[in-house]
Every structure is written in structure tokens, then in C-alpha cells.
């Protein structure tokens, strides 16, 4: 269907023209992907894929309100597109009134609408793959094993509405993650970063950092469970704050189901959650982490509405000066919660006003404590407090007199990110920090390193 003459823009126009519903939104997503994966210093799997997915949202007016239907198909022929539009029209006519019904977003044709879809190929690794090969050789020579993954995806979204709105957005997304182990598997370290195009990825430098960290771990120290003065690097802060962001739906809070709501109902917007000058925000224009500046929704949920497709997204502060300032919700949620519409945005930034320096500066201030690498297998234990459990992974380092002096065992932790924000003893400047746990699905995060005086390491994990 993307052969000459069947451009995504044409698919949008044809679907809109074919629909017999009262209103209609069409989303065409053209995606290219390429990846390489390795273990034990050798490639294990790889792949490229290309695809086109079409979503059709039809709206039909009825006596009790507007009804909607949302259908998506991977289509490759005009006949398949015709069947999709017919099915969406029919489903909308059979559906009951939509709880989130509202006017579709108005607007004109964006200036880049006619641009071709962006894509990627395996050749995006033209520089990286040979360097990886060299890193494998170095690792072999130095008794080190490398395990890792490079992933690059480019999705171009074309959004057309019966209101006349036409929007296009191309999203490059990529990351590299590498785990290094000693050949006896007793020491393990990890590095990872997000990237848009792999021009800023240096496999040999990443391997060198792994070698440095594995050297730190040559001295092992036994520690038991307990509360420790702990430095969380930006990646570990991202692991926790992404979970908090995903729990920040206005409707769930309003219904008293989450840490951002009250037991009797109503949200905690306006409550001070931390005594520190903390700002948690999302911004589609954040340099290096640019993401879609308008809402795309193939289905409605409590946090997003298909009726909001195309809605402009602007910088949104979720927390400001330590105070809860906004919760995620579509336009129609405003009437129920009394809060303004605040649709989700595909990046997340945590800033602490006045904080400077980096992880090393925080470590320099620790007399007797721990430096983490990243967190893993994070799951909610208690919704009311957002108590999360999980593990430390691939390097917990002992800090004495401001310097790393060895490695200790891994731990299981039980902590709430909201509680932690109230217990910060120092923070670094905000820098890009790729989440180990969630980065494959939410890669655009910038975080400070945080020092927490009494981080709860609930038990020891024997994993190395």
C-alpha cells in the first residue's frame, strides 16, 4: 500500500472519504525497525521490520450522545482498507454512547504533511557494528563477557480528521544497553543510553566504563539488609519516577485508588509531596528528547481519549516546588475532577532547583554508604502509598570516605518514590538518564542523581 501512488497521506484521505460516520479520525503509522542482540561476546539475534498500521476512529451521533468505535489493522491493500473503514463505521453504529464523547480537534494542514515517512535500516549500525566487534575482541582478551542490545525504530504518524486537521510526526527512538561480566560470572556491571540516531554511541567507551566498574567489584564486601545512605544515579531515579508518572492518572486519583488521591475520594493536587524544590515535568520540545507535540490515541482509557486525537501538547509540570500540580487526564475528565486537561506526554524530566554537579560529586559527599547502578523488577506492593518493591542490579558499590572501595551484594528494596522525594539529602544536576527497567518502552527521561539517607534494603539477593 506504500508503493508509488499509495502514500500514507493518500491512505488517510481515502479512509476519511470512505467513512459514512458523522465524524472520523484516521491514524496511519509507518514504522521501520532494526536491532542487534548479543551475549557471551557473540551475536545472538537480529532483525529488521517494516510495517504500516492504520487506525480508524468513527463517531456516530445518537439520541443519547455520540458513539465511537476504534479499529486498527496492518493493511496492505485498498480492499483491506475498505473493509477496515466499513467495519469501523458499522461498529460505531452498534456502540452505546461514549463516556468520553466530545468535539474532535479542529485545525488545518501542517506544513510537513506532504513529507515522506522517515525510516531506518540495518545500516544505521554502519559505524556501531564494527566497533562492537572490536569491543568483543577486547573483552575476550581481558576475560570479560559482553551482553547487550542496540535498537532503532522510526515511526512516522499521519493523523487526519474529518475536521480538516492534518498532522505528521516522525519519532526516532533508539538505545544501547550493555552488561559486562567477569568470565567467572561473579562480577557484573551495566551501562545504557538512549539515542536518536546512534551517532552519539561509542561502544568502545561503553566497554571501557564496564571495565572500570568490574574493577571496582574486585573487592567484595558482605553487607546485610538494612537502611543505607544511598546514591541513586539518574538511571535508577528514572526507574522509579517513570512508575510514579504511570500512576499519575487523574481519574484513578479522584476515585481514591492511588497515592495521588484521598481515601474518601478527590485528588491531592495542591498538596506538598516534598519539602524540596522539585519539579517533575514533560515537554515535547525538551532538547534531545523531542516527542510528539500532539495526542495520538488508537483507543480510549482513563488517561487518554480518542476524541483528543491531534490535541496540542505543551510543557506540563506535574510537580512544582515539591507540590503536586497536575495529573494525567483527557479533556473530558476535567468536568469530573475539576482539574484542567493534561494529556500524557512521551518524556519525563525531574529537576531539583539549585542542584549542580554529577553522580561523582554526590559520591564524594558520602562517608559510609552505597552507590547503585540501576534497579530491576519493580512492582507495586501498595497502591495507597505507591510502595514499590524491586532489586538492585549489576553493581552495588560500597562508598567510604567519598570513594568507591568495593562492591557489595544485591538487595531487594521496598520504597515509595513519593516518600523518597521527601527524603533527599542531596541532588545532582539533571542529565539524560536511561531507565534500565522501563527504558525499552519509555526511553526519553532526564533525571538528577539523588542521595537518600535511609534507603530500605529489605533483604539480600544472592544474584550476581
Amino acid at each position, binding site marked *: 500500500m506504500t508503493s508509488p501512488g499509495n502514500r500514507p497521506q493518500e491512505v488517510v484521505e481515502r479512509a476519511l472519504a470512505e467513512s459514512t460516520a458523522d465524524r472520523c479520525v484516521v491514524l496511519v503509522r509507518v514504522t521501520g525497525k532494526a536491532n542487534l542482540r548479543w551475549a557471551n561476546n557473540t551475536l545472538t539475534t537480529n532483525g529488521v521490520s517494516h510495517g504500516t*498500521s492504520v487506525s480508524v476512529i468513527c463517531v456516530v451521533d445518537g439520541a443519547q450522545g455520540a458513539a465511537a468505535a476504534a479499529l486498527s489493522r496492518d493493511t496492505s491493500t485498498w480492499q483491506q482498507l475498505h473493509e477496515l473503514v466499513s467495519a469501523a463505521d458499522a461498529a460505531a453504529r452498534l456502540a452505546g454512547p461514549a463516556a468520553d464523547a466530545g468535539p474532535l480537534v479542529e485545525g488545518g494542514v501542517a506544513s510537513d504533511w506532504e513529507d515522506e515517512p522517515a525510516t531506518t535500516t540495518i545500516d544505521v549500525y554502519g559505524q556501531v557494528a564494527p566497533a562492537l566487534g572490536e569491543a568483543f575482541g577486547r573483552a575476550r582478551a581481558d576475560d570479560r563477557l559482553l551482553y547487550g542490545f542496540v535498537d532503532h525504530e522510526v515511526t512516522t504518524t499521519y493523523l487526519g480528521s474529518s475536521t480538516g486537521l492534518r498532522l505528521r510526526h516522525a519519532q526516532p527512538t533508539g538505545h544501547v*544497553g550493555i552488561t559486562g561480566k567477569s568470565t567467572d560470572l561473579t562480577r557484573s556491571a551495566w551501562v545504557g543510553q538512549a539515542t536518536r540516531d546512534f551517532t552519539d554511541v561509542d561502544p568502545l567507551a561503553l566497554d571501557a566504563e564496564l571495565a572500570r566498574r568490574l574493577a571496582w567489584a574486585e573487592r567484595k564486601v558482605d553487607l546485610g539488609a538494612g537502611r543505607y545512605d544511598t546514591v541513586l544515579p539518574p538511571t535508577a531515579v528514572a526507574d522509579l519516577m517513570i512508575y510514579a508518572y504511570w500512576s499519575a492518572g487523574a481519574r484513578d486519583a479522584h476515585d481514591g485508588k492511588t497515592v495521588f488521591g484521598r481515601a474518601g475520594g478527590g485528588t491531592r493536587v495542591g498538596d506538598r509531596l516534598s519539602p524540596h524544590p522539585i519539579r517533575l515535568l514533560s515537554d515535547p520540545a525538551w532538547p534531545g528528547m523531542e516527542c510528539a507535540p500532539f495526542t495520538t490515541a488508537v483507543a480510549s482509557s482513563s488517561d487518554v481519549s480518542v476524541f483528543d486525537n491531534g490535541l496540542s501538547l505543551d510543557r506540563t509540570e506535574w510537580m512544582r516546588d515539591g507540590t503536586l500540580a497536575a495529573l494525567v487526564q483527557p479533556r473530558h475528565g476535567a468536568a469530573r475532577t475539576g482539574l484542567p486537561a493534561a494529556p500524557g506526554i512521551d518524556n519525563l524530566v525531574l529537576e531539583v532547583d539549585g542542584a549542580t554537579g554529577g553522580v561523582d560529586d554526590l559520591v564524594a559527599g558520602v562517608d559510609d554508604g552505597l552507590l547503585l547502578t540501576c534497579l530491576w523488577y519493580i512492582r507495586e506492593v501498595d497502591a495507597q502509598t505507591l510502595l514499590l518493591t524491586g532489586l538492585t542490579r549489576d553493581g552495588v558499590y560500597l562508598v567510604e570516605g567519598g570513594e568507591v572501595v568495593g562492591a557489595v551484594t544485591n538487595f531487594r528494596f521496598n520504597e515509595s518514590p513519593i516518600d523518597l522525594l521527601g527524603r533527599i539529602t542531596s541532588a545532582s544536576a539533571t542529565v539524560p538518564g536511561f531507565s534500565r527497567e522501563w527504558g525499552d518502552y519509555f526511553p526519553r527521561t532526564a533525571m538528577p542523581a539523588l542521595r537518600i539517607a535511609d534507603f530500605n534494603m529489605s533483604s539480600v539477593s544472592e544474584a550476581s
Partner: protein
Amino acid sequence: MSAAADRLRPDFLALPLHRLADSALQRCRDFGVEHAAVRIERLAAHVLRLRDAQVEGSHDGQTLGLAVRVVLDGTWGFAATTQLSTDSAVRTAEQAVRVAQVSKPLTAELVELADEPVHADAVWVSAYDIDPGTIPAQLKVDLLARWSRDLLAAPAVRHVDVAYAEVVENKFYADLAGSSTTQQRVRLAPELTVHGADERRGVIDSMRTLAPPVGRGWEYLVDAGRGWDWEAELAAMPEHLAAKLAAPSVDAGRYDLVVDPSNLWLTIHESVGHATELDRALGYEANYAGTSFATVDQLGTLQYGSGTMNVTGDRTAEHGLSTIGYDDEGVAAQAWDIVRAGVLVGYQTDRAMARRLGLGRSTGCAFADSPGHIPIQRMANVSLLPDPDGPDTAGLVAGVEDGILVQGDRSWSIDMQRFNFQFTGQRFYRIRGGRLAGQLRDVAYQATTTDFWGSMDAVGGPQTWVLGGAFNCGKAQPGQVAPVSHGCPSALFRDVSILNTHTEGGR
């Protein structure tokens, strides 16, 4: 045509499956590949969400595409497309070859595949009565909304959430050796959650149905004789929720635990299922899902648990979510032992790993979650066998002086070598003197895998055995999700560490 062939969805069979596969395979042959396989796959999914008896979201989605996988000069190559034309199939084959060529310099170990008999023109369809895709969406909404309204009528219930997912999966597979299989699987994951609050104590909490996701059709929701009595479970939920909200907080310490199958399936999944995946034991997941303490040098000797522990891997169990006729490498479904009388005796494998370790035939655990993803080793239905003469759950409870009964899965977390885990549940009951003595709140159990299974003192009988499971088992990079079931009886574990989650949170 066979009875199974008659049940295949005609609109999948109407696709030019053989023509596309032949074109791609022929192009692979041109490059002299050692192995090539084509998958054409469609996943038709309907997802519904209701909140307080109103539809919050509904999506009807289909993923459809073609994938080519080759081994060229001992190196994998993979490419996929959503374009189902002959030209596209040929181009995708060329891309797979190109990926293998680019990957060759990074490859130190040559790929070889374990042998598998040829399965030509094979057809397999999972066990179900009613294709859920034939049920009008509004009928599904009507049933789920009625259940929601009934629950909302109870004073203890403030809110009701419903999540419903159905998937009809069609796969066509063909390889250069001559195998070609056409399969259809149906699965359902309905769940309801009730929310309540005790404002006087400032407590909120929720409770989810224990009904497992299953490899069944629409009959699962409307016929109590087909796997679950929904009306009975829903009728009891408000009272369970009220008791939970009023329950005392647990005293942290060590207790004997009777674990119901509705909770134990997930502990099996995390601490046995993943730990006995051969790709993890070999380090392939070291950068993501993790490795395993159950390393290959311990096969046949590792004391995994007590002598009451017998675990099988199984891709043949009726209604199992991991049940298939043939895997995504053309290997026929099998069942085998993983733990026998407490000792590790088997792994889950794909063809390349089975060959590499000299294990003979693959156990048939290759699976890709979509046409755009490469098949990797995924989990069979890994199940704990009941004691043929074992007691019922009340019988196990009767053997506990001071303990806790655990029902329903909730929070789960385990480390990257599958040692240290922590689980919560939907309901916890105090056991005193062999009898239940009301619910407890804020309970989590924490243990190391071999300690926990070593503490299994008694296993319930076949009358307690239930097939639990999940749709969303995550693994691999790029990330893939897989559906999998785990059957188990109730079981008794001695002297397990219990945390109070309220005090863990520093309160």
C-alpha cells in the same frame, strides 16, 4: 478436510499463504542458506475496559504480517513486513539474508539446529467452543456492565474496574525442510476488580477476581461448566472486600503458609518457569530478563526443592495458554519433566540451544509474539503435579498450627538469577489451630527459591489442581509478551518469612 481444518477462520485461509511462503523460501534458496522459515501470522485482539459499568475504552485490532528467518553461514538473519505481496515476500527474504551478512562479523558461534521430523500440511486448532470474535461487542459490554452494576450495588464496593481481552491467533509456518503448519488458538483474559475504603482508618484497598486467563472461547464467561463459575465468584466478592478492609495488619515474622493455586501459579512461573529456560541459563538474557541460578552443570543434581516437588513442562495441556500443535520452529508440541522428586532434570529449549547442548530434540519452546518479532525460547505451561493421594486445601490447613492461607496473585518481583522473590496476594487468612481465623492485611511473603521449594512439606491432591496463568509474560529485546499457563495444586510451605508492607514502607 479434518475437523480441525474446518474450524480455521476462512479469512486467514483466504490469504495467499503458500504462494507467499514459496516465493520467500525460493529466494532464500538462491542464496544457499542452511535454513529458512517463513511465518505468516495474524493476531486479532479485542480489548475492553469498563469503569463503574461504563465503557472506558474498546479497541478491535489486528496485526498481520510475514516474517522470514534464515541461517546463512551459521548466522541468523531475520526480516519482517506487513506487506503481503509476492514482491514483498521476496524483498523480505533478501533483507533477512542481508541482516545475516551484516551480522556475520559479530558472530563467534555458528548456529546449528536440532533435527525435527518434517510435519507437512499439518493443522492444529486449540480447544474452545465459541470463537469470541463471533460475539457482538455490545453483548460483551452488556454482560460485563451487568456484573459491574451488581457489584456496585453492594455497600462495600465503591468502584468496579473491568478488563477484558480476547485473542484469536492464526499462524502459518513453512520451512525449507518441507514442514508446513496452519494453526489457530483462542484465548480470553477477563478480570474484575472491586475497590473500597475504610475512611475512619484512612485505608483504601481493592480485590480482583481469581478466575484465570485461559485458552477457551466465549463459553468461559457464560457457562459455569466451562472452567469457572463467574456468578458465584462475583457474588462473594463484596463480602471478601469488606472483610479485607476491616482486617488487622499482619505481624511480620515467620509462618507456615498454605498457598492456593490462584497464588502459587505465579510463584511457579517466576521461580521455576523462568529459571529453567535454557536461554537464561546460557546467558542470552543477561542484559535484560536475566540469567538463572539453575546452571547447566547442575542438570540432574541440583536439589531444587523437597521430594514432594514434581514439575513438568507441557505444550499439550488442554486450555493451556502456551499450548500449541507446533512451535515457531516447526517442532511438534511435547510434555517432559523439569523437576523430578525435587531434582532439576530438564530445561525448556529451542532448536539451536538443544543442538548446542547435545540435548537431542528441541522441547518445542520457540515462540514469537507477533509477525514482526523473531522466535525466541519462551515458556511452556510449567506445572506442579499434585500428590495423587493428597488432601484438599482444608486438609492442608488442618496441618497448620499457626500460619497463613494465601489466595490470588497480586504483586510479584524476583531477582535476575531467580533467587530472591517477594509476592503479595488478593486475600490472606490467618490459620490458628488448623482452622481459618479471618483475613489479614499488608502481607507479603519473601524467600529464596530453593529454600522455599525445599520447605514444601505437603502437596494437595488432584481435587485442588487449577490451571492459572497470564497473558503478559515479558522477555527479550525487543520486548515480547507471551501467554502461558501453570497448573498446580494447593501446597503447604513451612517457616516462610512474612513482611508487613505497611511497616516496610516506613510507616
